[in-house]
């Protein structure tokens, strides 16, 4: 109930940023996937997921994000994450997500790298 994820989307040019706030569980993961779908549909080829406002994720929520990676690979785009807590970053490494999505310390670093 209270644990609903809040999403904010910032559409730039080629790039778009999704900001999350809250717990990424089942529903949270699905909401992010929906938002990403829309952005991909609208032509954005580089997506940054800014998880600054997310301190907790679960494996179900994260596994849904694998769909976004698939879609990005299909369109030859890039998915990046930034502002991960150490535990979330560790989890992404445990899962091997780090091989298919780029991980940046903060948004500036991510945007810099993706708009070169």
């Amino acid at each position: 109930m209270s644990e609903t994820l809040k999403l904010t989307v910032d559409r730039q040019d080629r790039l778009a940023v999704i900001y999350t706030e809250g717990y990424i569980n089942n529903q949270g993961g699905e909401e992010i996937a929906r938002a990403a779908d829309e952005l991909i549909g609208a032509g954005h080829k580089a997506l940054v997921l800014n998880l600054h406002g997310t301190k907790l994720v679960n494996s179900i929520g994260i596994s849904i994000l694998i769909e976004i990676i698939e879609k990005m690979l299909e369109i030859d785009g890039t998915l990046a994450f930034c502002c991960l807590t150490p535990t979330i970053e560790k989890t992404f490494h445990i899962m091997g997500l780090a091989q298919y999505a780029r991980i940046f310390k903060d948004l500036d670093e991510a945007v810099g790298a993706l708009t070169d």
Partner: protein
Amino acid sequence: MASDAILREVSLVLPMVPDMEIAAGKTATALAEFMEMSSDKIDEVRMAVVEACINSFEHSHAADHKVHLNFAVLGSEEPEKLEITIRDSGVGFSPDDVEEPRIEEKLWAARKRGWGLKIIRGLMDEVEIHSGRNGTTVVMRKLR
């Protein structure tokens, strides 16, 4: 030195309903903070407990619809280890038969899930799973 005296022990019973794993995470956090674990380790313990609870919620089909948790601070004099036991009286499973998930195989696969146990093992120092017809007990430990 014997390091397995129980310095503190807390038990928690949760209903198997969405979001209740958060309460388990908070109890784990309280004990880990008491032990003065680093905030990174506390966060790892929290996530591991959340995953274990969700597994019981989702897969156990326990008739009592409850997860039973025990949190024990172990040590000789100073707290050395946090041991968390997550128990359900559900259908059980064979941990050895669970395939290790690999990202290469999950990409373009219909079922992308199956990461919980791998994450728990990656975040905790020791993990034991006892499972059978009477349910599942996961014992996980983290050194301070």
